[in-house]
């Protein structure tokens, strides 16, 4: 045994030496330069947004378009949150004041989290029924759900809008959560299937012998083992609904429940030409919570995303 290990070790060292010799150094530098240029193209708009959120119009119009701000004008942020121009704070029933922007953010959060929860539960249950229980049409059913990945959400806009309107639930969180869940479902099932296939069927059998019924197998065996799938499904669903504009724009165009994309669009559409600083501040406020979470969890988020790509 030991001898074998040593052998493979030396073999590995050999191959790596071989690789180093073969790699063209100039090419390597070129690739690295390319990567850095692309990183710059990705970061520059974000940097620019951050800098002009601290500038006043004179500075922006006066030639200092790309440079660092001469001073940090926090009044832009104050204006974005509390000012009359942009972020008139909305009063709710209790008289508690919350800046509109924060309100939009919370709305988006509520809608997204609820969507993730609903599509996750529905997908887990459906995947269990389709892959762990054998019945005649399980494959057909799965294929049907997979159609949902290609079907554009637009297709159901009008009928869903009319139904919601008839039920009187437009301008509520539910009116967005339901269609978002339905359209996140297919992807969630696809990912769930990948993860569930990794759980050995022998576990089901063992649980069965121990006297579990289907429900028992689902809750005591499958659900605890599906925890890794949770974050993956969460990421994909988040990407699908956090930015969604078309449904949000029609279903929740007014009121204090509008989501972040709609809110940002409404706030900035009116005065995009006049006040850059507060707009920039509003964009930063809308973006940075997500980016901060991402920076701290980037490895986990990427790994979850990657797991979805490999399993899906």
């Amino acid at each position: 045994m030991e001898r074998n290990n040593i052998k493979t070790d030396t073999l590995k060292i050999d191959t790596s030496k071989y690789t180093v010799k073969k790699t063209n150094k100039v090419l390597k530098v070129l690739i690295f330069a390319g990567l850095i240029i692309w990183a710059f193209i990705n970061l520059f708009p974000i940097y620019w947004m951050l800098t002009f959120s601290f500038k006043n119009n004179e500075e922006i119009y006066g030639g200092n378009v790309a440079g660092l701000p001469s001073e940090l004008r926090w009044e832009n942020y104050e204006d974005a949150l509390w000012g009359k121009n942009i972020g008139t704070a909305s009063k709710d029933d209790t008289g508690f004041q919350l800046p509109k922007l924060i309100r939009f953010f919370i709305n988006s959060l509520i809608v997204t989290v609820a969507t993730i929860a609903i599509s996750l539960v529905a997908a887990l249950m459906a995947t269990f029924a389709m892959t762990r229980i054998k019945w005649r049409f399980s494959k057909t059913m799965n294929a049907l759900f997979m159609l949902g990945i290609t079907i554009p959400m637009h297709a159901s806009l009008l009928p869903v809008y009319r139904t919601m309107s008839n039920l009187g639930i437009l301008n509520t969180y539910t009116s967005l959560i339901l269609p978002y869940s339905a359209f996140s479902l297919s992807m969630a099932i696809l990912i769930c299937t990948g993860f569930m296939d990794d759980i050995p069927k022998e576990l089901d059998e063992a649980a069965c012998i121990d006297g579990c019924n289907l429900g028992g197998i689902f809750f005591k065996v499958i659900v605890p083992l599906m925890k890794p799938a949770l974050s993956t499904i969460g990421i994909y669903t988040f990407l699908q609904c956090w930015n969604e504009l078309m449904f949000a724009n029609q279903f929740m165009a007014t009121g204090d429940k509008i989501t972040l994309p709609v809110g940002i669009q409404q706030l900035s559409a009116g005065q995009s030409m006049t006040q850059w600083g507060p707009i920039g501040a509003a964009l930063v406020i809308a973006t940075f919570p997500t980016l901060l979470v991402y920076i701290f969890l980037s490895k986990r988020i990427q790994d979850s995303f990657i797991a979805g790509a490999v399993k899906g």
Partner: protein
Amino acid sequence: MIRSFPVTPFGGAGKTFSIDWEGIYMKRKSKSHSLAIFLFLLPALILFVGLLIAPIIMSLYYSFFDWNGLKALDPSEDFLGFGNYTILFGERIQFGKALINSLILAALSVFVQLPVSLALALALGKKIKGERVFLSIYFMPVLISTVVIGQLWLKIYNPEYGILNTFLRAIGVLEGDIRWLGEKNLALGAVFAPTLWQYVGYHMLLLYAGVKSVSPELREAAKLDGATDGQVNRFVVIPSIKPIIKVSVIFAVTGSLKSFDLIYVLTNGGPMKATEVPSIIMIRELFLKNKYGVGSAIAVLLILLCFFFAILIGAIFKERDIYGKK
């Protein structure tokens, strides 16, 4: 008591059967089994049928009528047949142009966006310095709200004070202003650039996942046989990540057909319909002009197009696979 056994073949309704598993014989009523299957599927089915299948059928139905939604639909009076579809391609709406625009976007994403993503994924896939940092930066635009990105690019494109024109003036290429979003010939490109830019990170990460899943032994073996890096990528890595490339291509094409957010924020189809895409027209017909029939016809065409391209792309990749095996 053992009531069910999930790994056994399951007949039809009303069929009783027995299971032989390590000598244990069980008799089970399959009725309770069917009920369990039904219950587990129920939430997904309600969502899927209620909010996806049924609405699509309704869209298809609406698309055959001249209807503004204000009064109840009268099937005998308002029936138009394929009339809405001919209206679409008429002088007023010029749907064909919008369709061509979205096909241009699809072609650009397949032949520009995806190659860039693939190149990045391949470069990052072989243990380069700062791999994780690059990865994190490239994925960032995907996480930023499309509306924020749209507002940001509005500022970038601003004729007088935007960073793009300022830069061009600084290096002496430009005098005066270019109205990137206002000129008929420039607007389409100006709108597509951020669309393509934003999702490079998405495809890059998908493809990177594939590149990383190629077994290192395979690469080593190819290298021992004298393959250069380029050859390893060309003959080992790319063929083995074909399934993921296929998914990426399907997402890129169907995503382009559906594209809405950025165009809505940047130009809303203007100037002079230069940047119109199907979904922009659909929203306008549905909610500004109350032409429910015409809007539904666009919805139906979008579904058909998405299916058509998904199947076409699937077929292309299948053919290549067989060819590769020869």
